[in-house]
């Protein structure tokens, strides 16, 4: 799509969207937000880039194919949910650090679970959209 307004706006919007997605991810435990919404916002950033600069360039920008995000995200979520088992607690029990970290706040296993969800959502959304746009071009 050769649209100067879209291209210029995209260049400014992508970092904003990505930052906002991380903000939503970190905010999610006690407030609205979380891995799912964060992941959707992050994938919007890449989709926007795809619209403005073609999907092939987006793929090149990402270095990893989006389908690689799915198993990694699942693995992160699984590990964070089975970690309490080694502390003799039921699966998915939240384990928290004693002191809050600066900026991030309280860090616990549920944050990592959310990070896993975030990665899976990015992977699935982009995988679907890239596949559709691939078959559209052929």
């Amino acid at each position, binding site marked *: 799509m050769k649209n100067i307004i879209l291209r210029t706006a995209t260049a400014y919007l992508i970092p904003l969207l990505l930052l906002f997605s991380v903000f939503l991810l970190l905010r999610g435990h006690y407030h609205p937000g979380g891995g799912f919404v964060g992941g959707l916002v992050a994938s919007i950033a890449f989709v926007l880039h795809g619209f403005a600069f073609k999907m092939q360039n987006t793929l090149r920008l990402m270095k990893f194919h989006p389908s690689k995000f*799915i*198993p990694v995200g699942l*693995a992160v979520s699984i590990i964070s949910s089975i970690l309490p088992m080694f502390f003799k607690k039921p*699966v998915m029990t939240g384990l928290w650090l004693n002191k809050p970290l600066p900026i991030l706040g309280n860090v616990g296993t549920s944050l990592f679970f959310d990070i896993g969800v975030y990665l899976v959502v990015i992977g699935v959304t982009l995988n679907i959209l890239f596949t559709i746009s691939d078959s559209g071009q052929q």
Partner: protein
Amino acid sequence: MMQHLIILPVLVHLITGTVNLFFWGKPQPQRVISLLGTFTAMLIAFALFNQVRSEGVMVMHAANWKAPFGISFVADTFSSSMVLFTSFAGFAVSLFSAAGISAVRAQFAFYPIFHFLLMGLNGAFLTGDLFNLYVWFEVIIMASFVLITLGGSKAQMEGGVKYVSLNLLASVIFLTAIAIVYGLTGTLNLADLAITLPNIKNQGLINITALLFFIGFGIKSAVFPLYFWLPSSYHTPPSAVAAIFAGLLTKVGIYAMLRMFTLLFHPDAFMTAIILIISLATMLTGALGAIIKTDLKRMFSYLIICHIGYMVGGLALFTQAALGGAVFYLFHDMMIKTNLFLIAGVIKKIRGTTNMPKLGGLYHSYPKFALLVAIVIFSLAGTPPLSGFWPKIYLFQAGFANTSWVSNYYVIGLIFSSLVTLFVLAKMWKEVFWKKLPDTQIHVPDHFQPLSFMKKLSLVLPIIFLAGITLYIGLDAERVLTVANDIAKEMLNPKPYIKAVLGHL
């Protein structure tokens, strides 16, 4: 580690599926990982079963939120034995798919989805929460929809659409029923519901809800008149997939039905009559459908429906003998139906078709295989020392003990459909094994003979494995009967279950 045993059957498949995703597009490592995963699952299921048998009901509160607020996982004898038999079928199918699933299908995520399906099944058996049960059912539908359409042939798409639309309808009805129950009681924990539901004033609404649950699970387990998605979809996917569907998917509906109608609802005389009539109609339509079909897989699909009727009827009679018989039949059926579709897969490999008029001469060319199939067929028909015989005795006994006119018809239906099953299997034996190969089919190449020894082994070993378990169920029936009777006692007296979950009565 013992306290975590209850969630491990779910986790092991989740982890195996995820590890398989890392090997996207590489069938060979996926096969090895899948075999390891299903084998581990079998060991875990054994350990869980032993633990539950020796220590009683096991409970785990996920994320340490105590019942009735959090999601509880509960393993009593019924759910742990269902997990055990699922793990047998899972291992057999995983072994079979090493040669029975083409490399193309394996590249497109067959193995990860297969493991997510098994995870959903184990979750549905182990959960103690109504909404969580719904979630596991959704996991099962998603996974099975991918499996049924994987490969993308036209017949598969058609079968898949029928399959998924009817099952989604079932989910909607199921979800509506859950919403009504939650509106009435404010809780979704099964044990908590078992206490609160009898105290609700509006018992009429509860009976209606019970019927909604019955329709929802009825579609999933293919009872009359909601069964027609099953014979029009089960013959389309590859045999390994059809085997796991036939052995486990309808049975999870039966499991949920047995669980709901013993723990939450107690059928009154009216409902008993309705369920008995439905089970009778299911048996008859299934049996008559099986007579006219000439395709092996379609015929087996109708036999599934026919035998679902036995178990639903056992639930309706609601005595210890009837419930024990239904549960025993459930175990036997899971093993046999999985095996039948695996056998159909091997026959397709040998002759290139599963259409009976085009088959023949297998007894002459593969006598040992014919012997193996004979064991399975005799077990299914219910020849005395084998596994189909024992549960039927119990069902007959329960049917005669109940004096209402419907239960007399149920017994007649049971006898009739058993005879039809025998007739259908005899016909199949004659057509596939005894008849000479039709002249038109002599030049069809045999795809089984040129396979390497390992591949042949991976096709035949699962059939031997499942047939061995069927033989064990039949020949050591005393032990299985003890388990089935204990399950029936648990169903008729759910107090230990409730006490284990809530900590009080």
